[in-house]
């Protein structure tokens, strides 16, 4: 077929394109991924019985904001990486800024604590399982985000996969926090971050394989 015939084929009967389709798919992916993540947390891990009581502590809201802010910056990056030729802007820079803010808070917390309590602030009671449980809860979100990414047109596949993984990890951590009893800044700065980085690494590995078009 000659190229001009292909142009004719493509344009003949071409219909209107729904430009809001990508946004709708992203919202659907976030909603369905977060719902399954919540069901995993509530069903498999059980919600923290002291959850209601903890909402009165400032650190509860620091933890929720930390996960939510990382999720928002990650998601903006994901959306931008899904469209060819869009500049990433400053959103990806928000991620290290939020992480460093948490680390500063962690250092301040440790400095103010008595030496005997420092190990507890870092390790909490769940350091050994926390990153893996966050990765587990994030899995449905990662699948949903990669699914939508595949239907769009990422041109930097490894970054697109990594950003999807990080966003899944942050929102997964936010959902997981409904189960998690840990509130100390050093714990959040280490184990929560590691939990987010596991799906990030999985996404970076899967990206070039799954997202090619």
């Amino acid at each position, binding site marked *: 077929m000659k*190229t*001009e015939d*292909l142009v004719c084929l493509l344009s003949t*009967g071409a219909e209107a394109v729904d430009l809001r389709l990508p946004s709708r798919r992203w919202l659907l992916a976030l909603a369905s991924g977060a719902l399954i993540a919540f069901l995993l947390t509530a069903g498999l891990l059980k919600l923290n019985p002291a959850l209601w009581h903890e909402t009165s502590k400032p650190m509860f809201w620091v933890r929720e904001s930390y996960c939510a802010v990382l999720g928002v910056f990650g998601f903006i990056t994901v959306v931008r990486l899904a469209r060819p030729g869009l500049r990433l802007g400053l959103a990806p820079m928000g991620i290290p800024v939020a992480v460093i803010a948490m680390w500063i808070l962690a250092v301040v917390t440790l400095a103010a604590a008595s030496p005997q309590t420092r190990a507890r602030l870092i390790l909490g009671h769940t350091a050994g399982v926390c990153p893996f449980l966050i990765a587990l809860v994030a899995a449905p979100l990662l699948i949903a985000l990669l699914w939508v990414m595949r239907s769009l*047109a990422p041109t930097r596949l490894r970054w697109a996969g990594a950003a999807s993984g990080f966003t899944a990890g942050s929102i997964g951590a936010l959902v997981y926090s409904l189960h998690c009893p840990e509130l100390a800044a050093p714990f959040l700065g280490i184990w929560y971050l590691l939990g987010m980085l596991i799906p990030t690494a999985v996404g970076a590995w899967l990206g070039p394989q799954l997202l090619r078009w």
Partner: protein
Amino acid sequence: MPHSSSISIEERLRSLMLPSLTGDAASYRTFLDELTTHLRSYLRRRLGSLPDEVEDLLQELLLVVHNKRHTYDPKQPLTAWVQAIARYKLVDLLRRRSRGDVLTDPLDEDDQIFATTASDAAEAQYDVAKLLRGLPDRQRLPILYVKIEGASVTDTAVRTGMSESAVKVGIHRGLKALAERIRRIG
């Protein structure tokens, strides 16, 4: 040459693309025609040592521009969108060839797609028409009737016994499958 500066090319192509996105097939035809000349000239410069690949990649690019046009954000420069797609596909082709020597010079940002035009039509080495015959009927027939013979979706639905939405889905999936097959051949 009717459009000399890159700003006027941006404006010209956008003025064709925006109505295309709302279903203006005539604007879309002109858009694809003009895009073809820009892309062909770009690919000829880029694929200097692989001249046979130019028309192949050009047709693949036209198909993916069509299939991925829902990822264009009207607030964004259209030339940047096209350029990112072309570079992605070009790098992909060079990787598939896994030959470092095909690049006549590094793939830098300076080489503008929209700097020159090349308009003599040619055929690709693979044949889209032949690939089309390999598609299942639920995709092949809607593309054949609507996109090649120019029949309406309604008439095609009657002729094939499919629903109108199945005809539209068949076209959409068929063109995606074509792009996928071209990618796997290459």
